[in-house]
C-alpha cells in the first residue's frame, strides 16, 4: 500500500510539473507586453526595457520558467499587477470560499445521488427508475447559467427565500456566508447529481446480477442484509471514484456558477485574472487548480484501493 501511494505521488509530481510548464508557456505567449501594461502605453522604450530586465523578461523563456517555478515552490507567488497585492493570500482566501461552496454542494448531491441511484437500480425498468433517470439527466443538459437564472427567479425574486446575489465579502465566516451559499450550491448539485445517480444505478444493477448476490440470497439472508452487506460494498466503489474525482471539478471548475452568483471563489478569481491579463495571478491560480485536480484523483485512487481488496494487494 505504501509503495502504491509513493508511486502515485510520483505520478502526481510529474503531472503537476508538466502542467506548470504548459501553464507558464501559455501565459508567456499571451498577446500583450507586461512592461507596457505596467508602465502604460506611452512609457519610453528604455523604461520598459529596464522593467523587463528587472522582472527577468529579457531572459530566455526556459530561464524565466525556472525562476518562476523555484519561487512558486518557495511560496513566493509574486505580486498581482491588477490589484498590486501579493498573489498568495488572495488565492488562498478565494480557495477557502470555493471550498465552502463545494462542501455545501457536495453534502447535497452525493447522499441524494446515491440514494436515488439505489432506488432506481432496485426498481429497475419501472416508472420509478425512469422518472429518476430522466429527471436527473434533464439537469445535466441544463447549463449552470440557465439553471442558476431559473433558481434565482423562483427562489430569490418570486419567493424571496434566498438572496439573489452571493457577492459576500471575501473574508466572511462560513456561518455568515451560509445563506448565500445555498442557491449556488443547488445549481452545482443539480448538474453533478446525474453523474452520481447514473453511476450508482448502473454499478448496482451490475452487482445485483452477480453470482455472489445469488449466493447471498440463497443463504437465506433478508433482502436488506443482502443489500447492505453484499451489494453496496461492491456497487458503491465506482461511485466513490466518480465522486472523489468530482471534488477537483467542484473546487476548481465552478467558474460559471461563481460568475452567475458573483461569488468570490477561485473560479471567479481566475476569470478576473484572465480578463485583466494578470499573468502572476493566472499562473498561480491555474497551477493551484491543477494541484487540486490531481490530489482529488489521488484520493480517488487511494480510496478505491482501500475499499477494493483486489487492487490493494497487487
Amino acid at each position, binding site marked *: 500500500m505504501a509503495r502504491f501511494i509513493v508511486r502515485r505521488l510520483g505520478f502526481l509530481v510529474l503531472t503537476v510539473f508538466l502542467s506548470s510548464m504548459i501553464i507558464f508557456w501559455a501565459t508567456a505567449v499571451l498577446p500583450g507586453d507586461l512592461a507596457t501594461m505596467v508602465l502604460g502605453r506611452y512609457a519610453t522604450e528604455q523604461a520598459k526595457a529596464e522593467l523587463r530586465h528587472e522582472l527577468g523578461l529579457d531572459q530566455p523563456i526556459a530561464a524565466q520558467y525556472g525562476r518562476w517555478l523555484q519561487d512558486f515552490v518557495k511560496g513566493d507567488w509574486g505580486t498581482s499587477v491588477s490589484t498590486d497585492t501579493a498573489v498568495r493570500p488572495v488565492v488562498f482566501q478565494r480557495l477557502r470560499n470555493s471550498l465552502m461552496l463545494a462542501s455545501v454542494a457536495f453534502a447535497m448531491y452525493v447522499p441524494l445521488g446515491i440514494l436515488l441511484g439505489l432506488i432506481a437500480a432496485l426498481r429497475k425498468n419501472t416508472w420509478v427508475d425512469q422518472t429518476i433517470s430522466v429527471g436527473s439527466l434533464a439537469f445535466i443538459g441544463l447549463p449552470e447559467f440557465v439553471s442558476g437564472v431559473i433558481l434565482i427567479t423562483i427562489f430569490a425574486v418570486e419567493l424571496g427565500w434566498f438572496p439573489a446575489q452571493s457577492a459576500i465579502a471575501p473574508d466572511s465566516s462560513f456561518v455568515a456566508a451560509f445563506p448565500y451559499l445555498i442557491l449556488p450550491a443547488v445549481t452545482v448539485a443539480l448538474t453533478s447529481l446525474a453523474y452520481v445517480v447514473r453511476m450508482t444505478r448502473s454499478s448496482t444493477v451490475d452487482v445485483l446480477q452477480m*453470482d455472489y448476490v*445469488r449466493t447471498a440470497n440463497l443463504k437465506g439472508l433478508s433482502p436488506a442484509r443482502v443489500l447492505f*452487506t453484499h451489494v453496496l460494498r461492491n456497487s458503491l466503489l465506482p461511485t466513490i471514484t466518480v465522486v472523489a474525482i468530482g471534488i477537483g471539478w467542484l473546487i476548481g471548475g465552478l467558474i460559471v456558477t461563481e460568475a452567475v452568483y458573483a461569488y468570490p471563489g477561485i473560479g471567479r478569481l481566475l476569470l478576473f485574472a484572465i480578463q485583466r491579463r494578470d499573468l502572476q495571478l493566472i499562473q498561480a491560480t491555474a497551477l493551484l487548480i491543477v494541484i487540486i485536480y490531481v490530489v482529488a484523483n489521488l484520493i480517488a485512487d487511494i480510496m478505491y484501493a482501500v*475499499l477494493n481488496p483486489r487492487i490493494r494487494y497487487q
Partner: protein
Amino acid sequence: MDAPAASAMSGPGGTATASRPVFEIEGLSIEYTTELGMLPAVRNVSLRVHEHESFGLVGESGSGKSTLAMGAIRYLAANGRVTAGSVRLNGVELLDLSPRQLRALWGSRIGVVYQSPLSALNPSIVIGKQLAEVARQHLGMEHAAALARAEGMLTKVAMPDPGAVMRRYPHQLSGGMLQRCVIAMALMTDPSLLIMDEPTTALDVTTQAVVLDLVAELKREFDSAILYITHDLGVITKICDRVGVMYAGEFMEQAALRELFHQPLHPYTLDLLGCVPHFDPTPQKRSLVTIPGAIPRVDELPLGCIFAPRCRYVEKECHADRPPLVDVTDGHLSACRRWRDVPPPAVHLREATEAVRMAEEGAAAADVLVRAQGTEVHFKGPRGFFRGRTARVIRAVDGVDLDVCVGQTLGVVGESGSGKTTVARAIIGLTPATGGAITLRGRRLPPSTGRRPRATLKEIQMVFQNPDASLNPTRSVGEAISRPLVLLNGLSRQGARARAKELLQAVSLPVSYFDRLPHELSGGEKQRVAIARAFAAEPELILCDEPISSLDVSVQGSLMNLLMKLQVEKSTSYVFISHDLSAVQHLSDAIAVVYLGRVMELGTAVRVLTPPFHPYTEALLSAVPLADPDVVQQPIRLGGSVPSAMDVPPGCRFHPRCPRCLGDVCREQEPPWREGEGDHRLCCHIPLDELARLQAETIVLDAGEGA
C-alpha cells in the same frame, strides 16, 4: 407395442429403496415470460432424492436442468414462475411457503454449490466472514462461535491451513480451494438437500478429481440428499447413484447409474453416451455418434415425442402423441414408446459409427512437418515504474522439443498454466519465441508473423477456443472465410465466394449461412465457421487450441468427427491442444504432455497412454472422469496447482507435486530423458521398468458384472 400398464406409473424412485425420500418433485412445470410469449422451460417433471443418495441431473445446455433445480427451490428470475406441480422437502410443500419461510430454508435446510466459485463468493469480504454469516443467520450463533464453526467446516473439507484461508479474500485463492470454501459454506448447517450445479466444470481436470473425491467422501459423512447437475457423463459416474437425463425441459430417462450406462432405454441417452470418446489406447478409432439437428426451442416443440425429429429409431407413431415417462422395469423410467427396441450400447455404437483410418503404429516413416527445438517463450515479468529493479522472467515455454508429422495429429495436454497454448502461439508466430528454433519442412521460421513470408503464413492456421472472440461480430460468415482466400491464396473476390461456399459445405453448414452474422449461429456452428476459415488457406498445419471445450457433448462429438474427416480428406496435420485427455487420445496419433513450459512425455498416443507413464501423465490419466462406471482408476491426486512460471522449481520442475518424488535427486537434479519403445520418451529420475511396475494398475478396464 402398447405402453406399459398405467400401474407402472408409480413415479420415480422405485419401490425397493428403504430410506425415505428427502426431496420430491412431482409434475413440476416452470414458465418464463419473454418477448416471445410464455416459454414452458420445464414441463411436468418428477424426481425423488433419498437420504444419502445423489441424483444426477444430466443434459445439454438448454435442457432446463438448472431451471428445474432453481425453480424447485423457488429461486427464479422475476420473469419465471412455477405453473404446476409440487415440491416437498422433508414433507414440507415448498410451493406454499411465504418468502420469509423460504429464506429460513435457503442456506439452512438447502445448500447450494455453484459452477464458478470465484464469482459465487463476494470479492470484497474475507472467506471466514462469508462462511460465518450462514451460521449467524440460521444457527443463531455469535460472531466468534460462527467463525469457529466456519473454520471447523473448512477443516472438514480438507482445506490446507484453514485458519489462514479464513482471512483471505476470494481472489487470493485457487479455483479448487475456492470450491472447497463454497462447499463448506453449503454444509455449514448440515442441510437436508445439497444442490450442486456443475461444481467442477470451471476447474482443471486434476482439481476436478480432488473436488469429486471430496464430494464423494462428504456424501458418506453428511446425511444430505444431493441433486447434482452436470453435462459431463464422466463426472456423473464418480458421484451419482441415480441419473435423470433431461432434454428440452423433460426427462427422457431415469435409472440407477450402472443401469443407465449398461442398458439405456432411451435413444437420446444412447446417443449421448456415444458422443463421448471412449478411452481406448489403440490406434484403431471409430467416429463418434452424432445427433442430427439441434435441441428444439421450448416454444416450438414437436407434437409427438420431443426427441423424435432427431431420433435414429423413430417410427411414424412416434410423431402422433407425446409418450409419458413410465416405469418400464423396476425403477427404470423411460419416455420412449419403443424402449423395448433400444439396442445395447455396444450394438448402437457399431451401427451409428464408422471406422476411421488412423496412422499405423510405428508409422515413424511419416515426414516431419514442423519441428520445435528448444523453443522458449520468456516474458518480462511485472516491474515497477519508479523501482529500478530488474524485471523477473516468466518462463511460459521453457525449452520445448516436439515434432508434428505430415497428416498426423499431435495432441498437447497439460493443466492450465502449463504453457500449451503459448507453444502453439509460438509455432504460428503470434507470440514470438525468444529462443530455440522452429522449422517448417526443415526451413527455419522467423519468430513473429510480421517477418514470415505470406507463403509461410498460409501453411499454418489456427482455430481458437472461443469462436465468439475469434470471429468478427460485424463480418458475415462468408466474409470471414473469404478473407484468407483473398489475402493468402490470391483468389479474386468472385473466386473466393465460390470457394467459401464449398468450404461451408465441407464443414456441413448450409450454403445459405454465407450471409449470416456470427450472432445468428450456435456455438457449434460458429466453431465450424472457424474451422472452415482455418482450412480456407489450404494450410499444412492447423493448430486447434481447445476448439471444443466450451461446447456441449453432442456438439463436441460432431466437431471431432468433422476434424477427423477433413484430416483424412486433405491430409492436414493438427496440433490439438486440450485439457481433456479423452478428446486428445481420441484424435491424436502422437501426444506431448506439457508441464510448466516443458514437455514431460512424448510419443505415439498408444505409448504415452499405456505404462510406463511419466508420473504427471499418470496423475492426469487417473484424474480424467471416464464415462464408464466400471472403470477402476487409481486415485492418484495432485495437490495445489501449477506453480507460477516466474518461480520454476529447481531440479525436476514437477517434483513439488509429484506423487512419486524420490527425494533429493528430484529436488536438485534435472531428470534425464529416458527412451522407451518407438519414439516414446519421458523425462524422469525413475527408470522406465520401475515406472511400469509401479503403474501396472493405474487404469483397470473391468469387464464388469453388469447391474
